[in-house]
């Protein structure tokens, strides 16, 4: 797992911990003195387009399509007066905001331009389908924009994303059935789009595996008949660990290597991100 590339896309199903993992990884890299940008896409709880200095080496961007569109257009047109006419136009504003494809193109385009200003950019991608649509939208529009400068930019962007020396895709999942199935599906799509740049897998929030549970011999199927609601905390932790081991077989069957992160919680003196950052530093191989 090489998490030292310039661009690191953190992908996966909703609820698997992409935000925490991406933030913690950005923190880990920034602590090494590397200037790192942690990116969220259109977080409705933060001001659109806001760039925030967390520490001198760690920055956060809430990448948003209207602000990204304005910057991109300004860069391409070059003449401020023309840029202004263009951007104040209602039709153009509408296209920046709502048009699928254009929307994705400017969001990824913004990141692509920013890569010159940082050692690392860690991206907290929208969940599976929406994250994937950002790449597909960019690809589709690059085809539609035959001839124009936007077409060339889109092609260069996709080339950068497909280049394993510049970009890495990290698929985060949980040891639960749905997230694992979805991560395998996502992996298939990414492979098709970027065949030379295979993704790596991170299993987040892996529960401790109690040795008392005869995990090898028991299958969750054997519990059918009893209520799915656990009887006690002990019953729960034993069943959970058996379930998780069972679910991880889905990855093993596909011969997919993965790294596991333990089930972490904030402690009194450390929040979750710092705990997670330490765990990444200690357990995830950063080449």
């Amino acid at each position: 797992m090489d998490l030292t590339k310039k661009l690191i896309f953190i992908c996966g199903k909703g609820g698997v911990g992409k935000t925490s993992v991406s933030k913690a990884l950005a923190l880990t890299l920034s602590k090494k003195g590397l200037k790192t940008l942690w990116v969220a896409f259109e977080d409705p709880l933060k001001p659109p387009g806001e760039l925030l200095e967390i520490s001198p080496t760690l920055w956060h961007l809430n990448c948003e399509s209207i602000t990204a569109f304005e910057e991109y257009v300004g860069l391409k047109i070059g003449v401020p007066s023309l840029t202004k006419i263009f951007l104040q136009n209602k039709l153009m504003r509408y296209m920046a905001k709502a048009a699928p494809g254009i929307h994705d193109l400017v969001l990824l385009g913004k990141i692509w331009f920013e890569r010159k200003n940082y050692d690392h950019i860690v991206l907290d991608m929208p969940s599976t389908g929406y994250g994937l649509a950002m790449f597909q939208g960019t690809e589709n529009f690059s085809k539609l924009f035959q001839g124009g400068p936007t077409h060339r930019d889109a092609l260069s962007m996709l080339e950068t994303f497909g280049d394993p020396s510049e970009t890495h895709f990290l698929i985060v999942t949980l040891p639960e059935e749905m997230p694992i199935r979805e991560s395998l599906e996502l992996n298939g799509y990414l492979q098709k789009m970027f065949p030379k740049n295979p993704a790596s897998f991170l299993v987040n929030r892996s529960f401790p595996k109690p040795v008392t549970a005869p995990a090898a011999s028991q299958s969750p199927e054997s519990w059918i008949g009893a209520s799915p609601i656990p009887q006690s905390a002990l019953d729960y932790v034993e069943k959970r660990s058996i379930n998780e081991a069972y679910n991880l077989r889905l990855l093993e069957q596909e011969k997919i290597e993965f790294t596991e992160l333990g089930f972490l919680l904030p402690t009194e003196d450390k929040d979750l991100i710092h705990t997670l950052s330490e765990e990444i530093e200690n357990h995830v191989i950063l080449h």
Partner: protein
Amino acid sequence: MSYSIDSILDQRRILITCGTGGVGKTTLSAALALRATLLGKKTVVVTIDPAKRLANSLGLKTLSDEPTDLTQELKKAYDKLNPSFPRSEKGSLSAIMPDTRHTFESFFSGLSSSKTHAEKLMKNPIFQIFAKEFSGTNEYMALEKLYSIDSLGKYDCIILDTPPSRNTLAFLNAPLLLAQFFDERIIRWLVLPTNKIVSVGMKKALGILEKLTGSGFMGHLFDFASSLFEVRMAFQANLRKITELLTSKDVGFLLVTTPNPETLPELLHFMDAIKEHQMHFDGIALNRTLSYLKTTSTENFSPDTSHALKIVSALQERESITVKKLNEKGFPFTLLPELARDIHSVEDLLNVALAFN
């Protein structure tokens, strides 16, 4: 402030469950439908993206607009479990898993005045991207489906499990986002680019756009806009009836979330948005809770087991902080237990349905 899920089911004809991925929204929606059936409602659950086993246990093997009747299965499971919760004979239960991804094109065909117009629209490359990538498509189609099921008049309880979204608010915003495309003032400019009423500014802006994107794109864009222009009235009428339904007193929203104190800002944001849209917020369902589990002392176990038990206690602690904060703010909420395994059958779902408190 806790609330009774049964009184909500009594009050609303339609309940829409919202929430981000991984919170167990689909299982909860199905369990809610079972509960409504026990209460004597003619119930249908509309589910968009269930796990394979859950879909199987609801008898949903393929995407289809035909409901699967589960009334007898529920009766059998009920007789087997023989719970103290009463079951009304009047209730019925069905489930539907509609194909929202592929109904988008037929939706536009329906709006079009003629077959040729519909075909022209489908062939437009911008429309094709739009149909595939537009992030409001699934959401809007789910609402469209909801409307048509409700119009049948066959059900007095419809549970809509919303599709996975970018964020909790995306579902509420989808109709407006799609409506932006049909903004008459804007598409009129594209439809009549050479018309004299088009301002100098617009001409300049279009000129710049052409330089950036190439002339092929502009041609497609004008075609796309004229197609939208033709169906705009039909679409707006459709949007109005959907909005009317969503803002009516028959429809309530439930927010499904997990018991983490960190999710509170999102909850607040969601509730504000519901109010802003003049819809009705009915409460929070805290799913996957652990507080009901008796904690065993962590001694006398292997290190891994006691570590696991410590995590459970820590999670219970976080849950009680969440509950306390919800109480302080006076938000209505209910708790549902975390399960030890996946749902395999209607009987499993009945166990969950009985656990609503």
